[in-house]
């Protein structure tokens, strides 16, 4: 159980070896305007460009120490998800290197690995394996996962019959119990009903206190300030700040204000 003393304990700056090393990484996307022969001909005839390239990340470097919890901040489209995808290995950088220590698992989307035609029970095994757990590990954690998600009664029902709340609870619960060395969380804490959300945040705090490395994207700045050791702020694909999480939060606030003003 998490007592207040543990909380401050958890916030102590860990001093270990680096767990995530992002060095001078750039990522460029190609936006194709035309895919079909018809569109291509029309565009060629009008002398319009067939595609455009877009730099989602410019020379970003970031080192996360083992046990550190880092908040990634920035407006929509600033490259937070792209950075997390590079760290998880879903995408590869065009320039620079990304290296990690240990197993990375991400909650980049709630329930990407859940299959609607399978039952809750089958999905725990499938999604657990997708997130990198071994069979023995899943069996060991099965009861904890089910208890946390609170879908016991529907365990043998196909997931397609779940309410969206139940669906997300099960998905989060599986991901939060995979115990990776590096845990990536992208905007999934906003889902679910408030009590479950509290439970998720408590679980993340627990993971942090166990000394797992985490990178978190969320929109709730006070929560991030409370949870994280460090804040990193991205603006249009560039890292503009790396340091105190409260300071990063206020930079983000300023960006948000500037955007809504314009």
């Amino acid at each position, binding site marked *: 159980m998490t007592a207040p003393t543990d909380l401050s304990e958890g916030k102590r700056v860990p001093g270990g*070896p680096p767990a995530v090393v992002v060095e001078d990484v750039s990522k460029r996307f190609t936006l194709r305007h035309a895919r079909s022969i018809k569109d291509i001909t029309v565009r060629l005839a009008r002398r319009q460009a067939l595609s455009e390239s877009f730099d989602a990340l410019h020379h970003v470097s970031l080192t996360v120490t083992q046990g550190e919890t880092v908040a990634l901040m920035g407006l929509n489209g600033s490259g937070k998800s792209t950075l997390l995808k590079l760290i998880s290995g879903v995408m*590869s950088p065009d320039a620079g290197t990304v290296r990690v220590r240990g197993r990375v698992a991400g909650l980049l989307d709630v329930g990407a690995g859940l299959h609607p035609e399978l039952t809750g029970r089958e999905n725990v095994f499938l999604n657990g394996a997708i997130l990198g757990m071994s069979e023995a590990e899943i069996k060991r954690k099965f009861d904890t996962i089910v208890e946390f998600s609170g879908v016991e009664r529907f365990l043998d029902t196909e997931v397609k019959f779940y309410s969206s709340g139940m669906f997300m609870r099960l998905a989060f619960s599986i991901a939060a119990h995979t115990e990776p060395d590096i845990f990536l969380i992208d905007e999934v804490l906003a889902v679910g009903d408030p009590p479950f959300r*509290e439970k998720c945040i408590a679980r993340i705090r627990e993971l942090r206190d166990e000394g797992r490395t985490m990178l978190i994207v969320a929109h709730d700045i006070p929560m991030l300030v409370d949870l994280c050791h460090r804040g990193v702020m991205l603006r249009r694909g560039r890292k503009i700040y790396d340091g105190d999480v409260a300071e990063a939060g206020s930079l983000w606030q300023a960006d948000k204000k500037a955007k809504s003003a314009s």
Partner: protein
Amino acid sequence: MTTASQNAGPASTGRAPAVQLGSPRHGRTVRTAADPELRSPAGRGGLMEVVHHRYLLKLLLRRELKARYKGSLLGLGWSYVRPAVNFAVFYFVVGVFMGMDKVIKDFPIYLFSGLVLVTLFTETLQSATRSVLHNAPLVRKVYLPRELFPSASLLVSLVHFLPALAILVAGALSYGWRPTLTGVAGAAVGLLIVVLFALGLGLLCAAATVFFHDVEQVVDIVMLTISWTVPMVYPWTHVRDHAPRWLLQIWQLNPLVSAVELFHHGFWGPLSDGRIPPPPALTARTVSALGCALMFFFIGEAVFARLQRRFAQEM
């Protein structure tokens, strides 16, 4: 581990001082360059990674089989119906109406031994081609060896193939067939050729489909022709008698032609009355077909491993 659901309350107040601010130590760190435990999060690709993820492959196979027949009365039984209908159509149209029954002794066995292989090939290639694109949500969000998806397609087809093979054996036995050592060994090589060829092409087409969705249509159309381009409903002698010699030679280069002939050699050959002579130089062509299938397998694997790095951003 207990869940701390009740303790998520007030924020911690007694926070320790924050991390040293935006110092260069967060930037390029030379120290880490030689650390052997730091590795790239993305795998290098290749089928060896599938071997390391055997358990997940098993679950994906189970998912495929379950999802495909979910809510149907017949379930896995449907995988028997499709080849059965196929067989009946070919048997009555080509065998009875067009008289192939009289040209080829024990035509049903001749037909079915080719049909099981052709079905294995087309099913594997078609579902492997779709496999990556159809798993887009996963490919975009989670790093997995992407080779898992075409591999699972192959396994599903093999699950369908095994009962068909059992029926073939039972049917051949009822016609008086007795296995021969070379026949069975040859059939095993024929199966290997089809598996390697289908998986290699499947990897190639699956990767290409991510970039050009048209590939899926092209593969479907080409698969319509497979039953007619291998000696399944006609004997090889028809090609010899009706086509120029160079065309026969090109036709015989197709690994599927050799694979089907190997199955004929194994399951129908012992029943043959010699009216259809055995195809010439089958041993040499087996070697060349196996080489060709291996080549496609390695090319498919290498191309897929290269292209899979760009899958997530292209879908």
